[in-house]
């Protein structure tokens, strides 16, 4: 090594003016403590979220209670005594102008449902049940409900069996996440819906609910239909969790909102979700706008992505701004965005004032990277 290079190294080593080592140590020590705390809080949150993870926009598995109990052998009428089937949202497209149009669309999309010959004949409404409508064609009765785009969506169905007697048949996997159950009946066990709602609320509020009561919709006559579950938490707030069975895989949380009269899934207040600024070559961040209820001091935003469920704490300032940009968690620009989102609002004494949620497919549309 030449003396010049050695001298350069020495000069480099003396760059700048040394600070106070005590001050550097104090700052680093505080920084380390803060990070340790964040890590601990993160670990606790992870455990809680894992408990409720199945419920949060996903599914809970409980084969024992999610089946429909066959306690009432007497069929009520044609349409209620046959085999029921559940319908996943992917099987139909909401937004059809009438229940009959939704049913026709459903039949067109799923012509080969095992065991069910879905006729494409004229569809007729067979009476209003609650907020939904039953639509009948031939020996199939489909149940339509208002969708989130103000149109109609098929949510359940049943095949008439002529004399109304239930037929025994093995479970048939239709390959779309849906199963056909044998000998379904009008009475459904709602305890697993309560369990799922309770686990979900406990996971995001960090406290056990005081009271959990399932409130089946009138439309349950067509099988294990969607169910509202009223959950009362410690602070006195009542939360309404809207659940629906999904095949034989469990109950799924569809919406969370305030307790009130029965309302369609889209009735719950949802955050105003918009895409954030586009960064070339990167996924667009998701900006969530929300209107916090009065008395809110802090809030926690939970959001699920393909890489797990994450949370963001909002202080009073962030709550007042009514907007939060979710930290990006995707490891690649191609991964989908936020799946479900829930905001827990708390008062200054830590009580839960309200929970609001939004389900499904936020920020999935990506702007492709521009080529230079």
């Amino acid at each position, binding site marked *: 090594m030449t003396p010049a*290079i050695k001298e350069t190294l020495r000069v480099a080593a003396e760059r700048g003016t040394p600070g106070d080592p005590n001050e550097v140590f104090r700052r680093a020590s505080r920084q380390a403590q803060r*990070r340790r705390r964040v890590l601990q809080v993160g670990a606790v949150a992870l455990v809680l979220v894992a408990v409720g993870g199945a419920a949060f926009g996903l599914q809970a598995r409980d084969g024992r209670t999610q089946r429909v109990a066959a306690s009432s052998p007497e069929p009520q009428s044609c349409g209620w005594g046959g085999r029921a089937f559940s319908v996943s949202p992917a099987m139909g497209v909401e937004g059809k102008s009438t229940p009959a149009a939704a049913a026709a669309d459903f039949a067109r999309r799923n012509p080969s449902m095992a065991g069910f010959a879905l006729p494409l004949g004229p569809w007729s409404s067979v009476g209003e049940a609650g907020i939904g409508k039953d639509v009948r064609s031939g020996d199939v009765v489909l149940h339509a409900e208002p969708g989130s785009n103000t149109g109609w969506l098929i949510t359940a169905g049943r095949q008439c069996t002529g004399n109304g007697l239930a037929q025994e048949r093995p479970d048939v996997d239709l390959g779309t996440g849906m199963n056909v159950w044998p000998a379904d009946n009008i009475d459904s066990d709602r305890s697993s819906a309560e369990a799922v709602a309770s686990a979900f609320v406990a996971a995001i509020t960090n406290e056990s609910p005081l009271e959990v009561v399932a409130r089946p919709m009138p439309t349950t006559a067509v099988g294990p239909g969607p169910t509202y579950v009223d959950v009362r938490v410690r602070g006195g707030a009542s939360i309404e969790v809207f659940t629906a069975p999904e095949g034989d895989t469990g109950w799924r949380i569809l919406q969370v909102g305030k307790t009130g009269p029965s309302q369609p899934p889209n009735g719950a207040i949802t955050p105003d979700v918009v895409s954030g600024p586009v960064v070339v070559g990167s996924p667009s961040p998701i900006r969530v706008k929300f209107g916090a209820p009065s008395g809110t001091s802090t809030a926690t935003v939970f959001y699920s992505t393909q890489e797990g469920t994450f949370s963001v704490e909002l202080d009073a300032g962030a709550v007042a701004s009514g907007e939060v940009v979710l930290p990006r968690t995707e490891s690649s620009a191609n991964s989908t965005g936020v799946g479900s989102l829930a905001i827990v609002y708390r008062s200054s004494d830590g009580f839960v004032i309200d929970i609001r949620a939004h389900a499904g497919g936020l920020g999935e549309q990506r702007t492709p990277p521009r080529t230079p």
Partner: protein
Amino acid sequence: MQQRDGGDDRIFRELYLRLRRFASVVGPVEEDPDDLVQEALARTLRKRRLGDLDNPERYLQTVMVRLASNQRRALGYRRRLLRRLEVQAPIQESGPSDLADLLRLPPEVRAVLYLVEVEGWTFSAAAEVAGCSEEAARARASRGLRQLRVQLGEEAT
């Protein structure tokens, strides 16, 4: 403080100047060496006390080399992006040109050169800090020196 930190502050005070000199050599020119020392110390204290380490100095130096490598990658990306967008990079290298040439070398190479040539360490010990084998450390040092000589030679002509 001493009781709460189990003597870590005393250990750090003893090592501080040496660690700072090392940080000045391996850290990016845009960063204050104290910041690098502080970050390395914070990351170490998050997991363990300095008193529990066999050789706290070497441990902190290794952390600093890794942090500097990460920063170099991030800065490299930013510089490339700015160059592509034809924006004048706000990062201005200061100091004598031979110092600038030295700071253009990867942090691992700078670490090995400094520890061996200035601090008088063996290649084997320097390799531990740089996170590579002794042979790799020798090769890197040799390549770094060659590069420096070329650059300095070019400037001289």
